[in-house]
C-alpha cells in the first residue's frame, strides 16, 4: 500500500486498542466550564469573564484528545476555541485576541494546540495579536499529542 503523503492533520490513525486497554475514571468528572459561548467568533472579548483572567485559547480537537482537559487546564480559566485550519475570518480572531490583551487586560494567555503542523497557526495568531497590542502579557503554548500526551509546554 502506498505510504500516506497528504496533510498530517487528516492522516488516519486507529487507537482503539489503547483506548479500551486503559481504564477510564468511573467517578463523574465535574465540568470546569464557567461561560458561554466559547467559539472565538461568538465570544465578546470584553465579556466579564475575560477581565483580568487567565485565558485558554484551545484548538477544537484538543479537548477530545486530552483526557484531563477540564481538571488540568480549564479549571479556574476562561476559554475560547478555534480551528486555525478550517475557520474563516481569522483576521477577526487576531483583533479579538488583541482586545483580550488591551481591553480585557487578561493576566495570561495559554494556547493549547494539537501536534499537527497546521495547529501551530493558532499560536501564530496569538503571537501576531501580542505584537500588535500595546499591553504585553505572558503567552504560553502547550502542544498535545494525538494520544493525549503533553509534548511540550513552553512560555513564548
Amino acid at each position: 500500500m502506498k505510504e500516506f503523503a497528504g496533510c498530517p492533520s487528516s492522516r488516519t490513525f486507529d487507537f482503539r486498542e489503547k483506548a479500551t486497554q486503559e481504564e477510564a475514571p468511573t467517578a463523574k468528572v465535574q465540568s470546569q466550564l464557567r461561560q458561554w459561548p466559547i467559539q472565538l467568533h461568538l465570544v465578546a472579548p470584553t465579556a466579564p469573564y475575560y477581565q483580568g483572567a487567565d485565558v485558554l485559547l484551545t484548538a477544537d480537537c484538543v479537548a477530545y484528545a486530552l483526557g484531563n482537559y477540564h481538571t488540568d487546564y480549564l479549571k479556574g480559566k476562561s476559554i475560547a476555541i478555534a480551528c486555525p485550519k478550517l475557520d474563516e475570518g481569522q483576521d477577526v480572531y487576531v483583533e479579538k485576541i488583541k482586545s483580550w490583551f488591551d481591553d480585557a487586560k487578561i493576566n495570561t494567555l495559554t494556547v493549547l494546540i494539537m501536534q499537527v503542523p497546521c495547529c501551530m497557526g493558532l499560536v501564530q495568531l496569538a503571537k501576531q495579536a501580542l505584537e500588535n497590542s500595546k499591553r504585553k502579557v505572558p503567552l504560553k503554548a502547550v502542544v498535545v499529542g494525538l494520544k493525549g500526551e503533553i509534548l511540550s509546554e513552553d512560555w513564548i
Partner: protein
Amino acid sequence: MERYLNTPIKEIISKFPKVGEILEAYEIGCVPCTVGSCLLKDIIEVHNLSEEDEKEVMARIARVIYPDKVIPIPQVPRKSKARSKEIKYSPPTKKLVDEHVLIKRWIALIPQLLERLDVDSSEDREILFKGIDFIRSYADKFHHAKEEDILFKYFDESSDILRTMLDDHTKGRSHVRALAEAVEKRDKQGIIEHLNAYRELLTEHIKKEDEILYPWMDRNLSVTQVGELYSKFGEVDEISGNGVTERCRALIIETEEKFEKPKKEVRP
C-alpha cells in the same frame, strides 16, 4: 539513606568529603557554599536532574556513605518533569535574566579597572563612584528589590535556597559599603579587596539564579502567578525602571569605551 536525605549538605560533606566531589561532577556546587544548610533531598529536587542522573548520583553517594552495604536507593519526590538541556524561562524570570546581562557587563570591567587603578586619579575615582552608583541603583535597588519585594514573596522565604540568595544580597551590600569607604579614604588595598570579593560573589550568585533558582521557581509557579509577577515587574519598570536602566546602560557603555582607549595622562 533516608536519614541522610534529611541532613544538611554541609554536615554530609564534612563527614564524607567525597560527596562534595560527586555533586560537583553533576554541576551542583555545594562545596564552596558558605551556608550549606540545604537538605540533600532538597538539593536533588531543586537541581532537577534527569531521572538517570538522579539514580546515578544517589547510588554514588550511597556507596560513599555505606561502602560495605548494598542499600536501596530512595527516589526524591518531584513536582515536575525532569529538565531538558535548554533552559526556558517564564516571561517574568526572563526579565530578571536579561537584567543580569547589564550587571555582568559591569562585573567584567572590574579586572581592567583594578589593573589601571590609581587612587589619586580623579578619573579612576569617578569611575569607581559611578560603579557604586550603578550597583546601588540598578543591581540592588532596581533588580534585587524586584526579587526581594516581589518574586521571593511567592515562596517560603525561610527555605534554605532563598536564605542563601538573601545572604548573598546582604554580603554584596556590605562589600559595596566597604568599597565606598575605601574609595573615600583612597585605600587601594581596601578597594581591591572589596571589588574582587563583590565580583566573585555576584558572578557565582548570578550563575546560581540563572541556572538553578529561576528554573526551580518557574517549575513551581502557577500560570496565574506568572501573569501576576509579569504585571508587577512591569509596574516597577514603568515607575522607576526606564530612567534607571537607560542611565545605567549609558554608564556601562561609557566605561567600556573609556577602557578601550589609552588612559589619560594623570597629574597629581
